[in-house]
């Protein structure tokens, strides 16, 4: 009985110790500037059909795991207008943290060391017959998780804004 109680006592002390280490590590993370590298965005209009724009996102230093979240900054959802079908909890959490409250439509891409570029095509939902120089604003959040042993992940997020011009 005493041995069991000692084990029990030690395990609760261990949990306390682990928790304080976790807090210290996360506070250190807040003061680190990581070398995650740049992410470059290249937009190319389709020469035959300007309603389609091809977006290529290339992280220069692909870490072993990273996420790219792309969403449109305009509530009409003119370019990204579909919803994800999978309900992976981690992806939902990422989307919920960074998306504005009323925006449910986004693109969340997952990459690893071998995938070093993503290319996708976007098509306008509302066809424009007339010339209206309107720049659609997009946000890209490049998330690189840092994880130490069993502690939770800490994300470094690089936020980029890019534009798609309807006249391009």
């Amino acid at each position: 009985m005493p041995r069991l109680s000692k084990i029990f006592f030690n395990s609760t002390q261990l949990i306390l110790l682990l928790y304080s280490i976790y807090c210290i590590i996360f506070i250190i993370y807040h003061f680190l500037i990581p070398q995650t590298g740049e992410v470059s965005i290249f937009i190319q209009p389709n020469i035959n059909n300007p309603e389609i724009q091809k977006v290529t996102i290339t992280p220069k230093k692909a870490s072993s795991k990273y996420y790219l979240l792309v969403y449109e900054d305009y509530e009409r959802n003119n370019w990204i207008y579909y919803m994800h079908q999978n309900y992976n909890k981690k992806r939902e959490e990422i989307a919920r943290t960074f998306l504005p409250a009323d925006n449910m439509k986004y693109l969340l891409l997952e990459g690893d060391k071998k995938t070093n570029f993503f290319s996708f095509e976007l098509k306008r939902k509302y066809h424009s017959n007339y010339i209206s120089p309107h720049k659609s604003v997009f946000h890209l959040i490049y998330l690189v998780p840092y994880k130490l042993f069993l502690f939770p992940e800490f994300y470094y997020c690089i936020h980029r804004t890019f534009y798609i011009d309807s006249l391009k």
Partner: protein
Amino acid sequence: MKYLLILAIILQILFYAYKSQEEYEPFYIIKCIIYLIVSSIHSVIIIIKLPLGACLMSLIYLIDKKNRSVKLRLIGSGIIIVLLSALTYKDISQPFQKLYLYHLQPDAKKIEIYTHNATDKKFLFSIENQDTIHSWINIIKKSNSYNSWNYKILPQNTGYLIKLCYPSKTTSIVISPYTSHIPNVFVGNYYIPFTNALLPDLITSQLDIKPLALHISSAATAITDMSIINDLWDEILWGEQINDSSINNEIFEIKGDLLLNKNKGISLNFSSDFTYIQLNTKEIIQLSAYLKNKLNEQYILSQLDAVDSLMPYTHSHVHTPPSHTVNYMIALDSVQKYHGLYMSNTSDNTKMLLHTVSSPESEFFLLKNPYILLLDEKFPSIYHLMLINQNIPNKHRYVEKSKNILPDSIALCPQNTKFTYTIDNGDSSTLYVVSNYYDPPLTIATGEILDSLFLSDKYLLFSLVIENTYLLCIYDTQLSKTIRYITIPGELHMIKVENNNVIFAIHHTKDGQLKEGLFALNTDLKIKKIS
């Protein structure tokens, strides 16, 4: 993680209570549990979270006489659990961040503003007026702190860098454009995040350098399309420098000056296809593909020659030459009373009436055999447009009935299958295309339509004017969409189609000088200057 810790604390303290029972007390364990659970209850009164349960239990503690030290510990643990579960990261870090901001002294000697991108910065302007410095630092101090426990947001790459120069140190702050729920102010070397909606506008309002036009000195032309000039200015300010030793100075053949307001300007050198740009600091920036294509196009289109008088151009429709054995004409009938469209066969000298028309000014266009397009003028400015099959002349199809169709606007494709026409609606006109005779006509554009010509069976070019700017537009008949808009620096006159090229002329009549140029657009949609 936090709940694991709370569970560990609960288990630990209960175990301790079990172990260190000093005096016998009935229902000891249950009382301990009650003490712990009630002390863990907290409530939110006036925003502050108060451990009310602990207050209640400490009142009961005063009455209780047995096992006092254990019960004190239980109340203490209850308060610790309240603290752990009610405190979030935001409650702890927000005061610290506010304090950090509060310590920014308002007596900086100078504020320097730079553009900031991931690799370097460019100096924009500096502020030395003490009152302005005070007001700027007050605005910075009003930023709201941004707190996130398990992620850290790093600044964007197209922002500004503010350096507050104090006598003893320099504080740098990175500002990004404001987004509603992402921090845009990053203070210090560790990028402590804040949000501030006023700062980006404050900087842009102070930065009163605006680009006006781009002069190309090696070709004596100027590009004045403001959207291109503004894009070029943004790319000069925030473009990333290329450190490629393989690019030598000889490729920069095109020399130009970007005129800014307040009589300022910067000299730029472009490579021959506008891929790279070299600033006067010898820094090389690669332009985006969009800007490169637009600059190239405008560079070609702005190379006009000075002339004494402008040549008037009228355009020609595309027709196949009429066949030799069969002639078509509008003529009077045998009674000399009514006009009609007649087909006369020269070999056997027969004349056949295809369809009656209302006036001798009616026009006809020979489409691919056996169709003929007939524009019948019923009354002045009221026309019927119909399709006639020569083999079945009694059955005709009206494309438009009683509309104000402009006779000069009808254009046919090289194979004579598709055609376009423009209808005048009073203050605007609409351009229609007919590709399939069984479908209704498709609208291409509405506005001040000038002209249309078929470059090929696939591409149709039309010109229109929007807000005094002439635009040359390319419409794809297979996709049924306009695929390109080209801004024309001057007045556009479409002339003819020759060898799969559309020939057009640009007249420039501003600045008291007459300039003219002839250009050709081929089926690859590339523009070349001719003559």
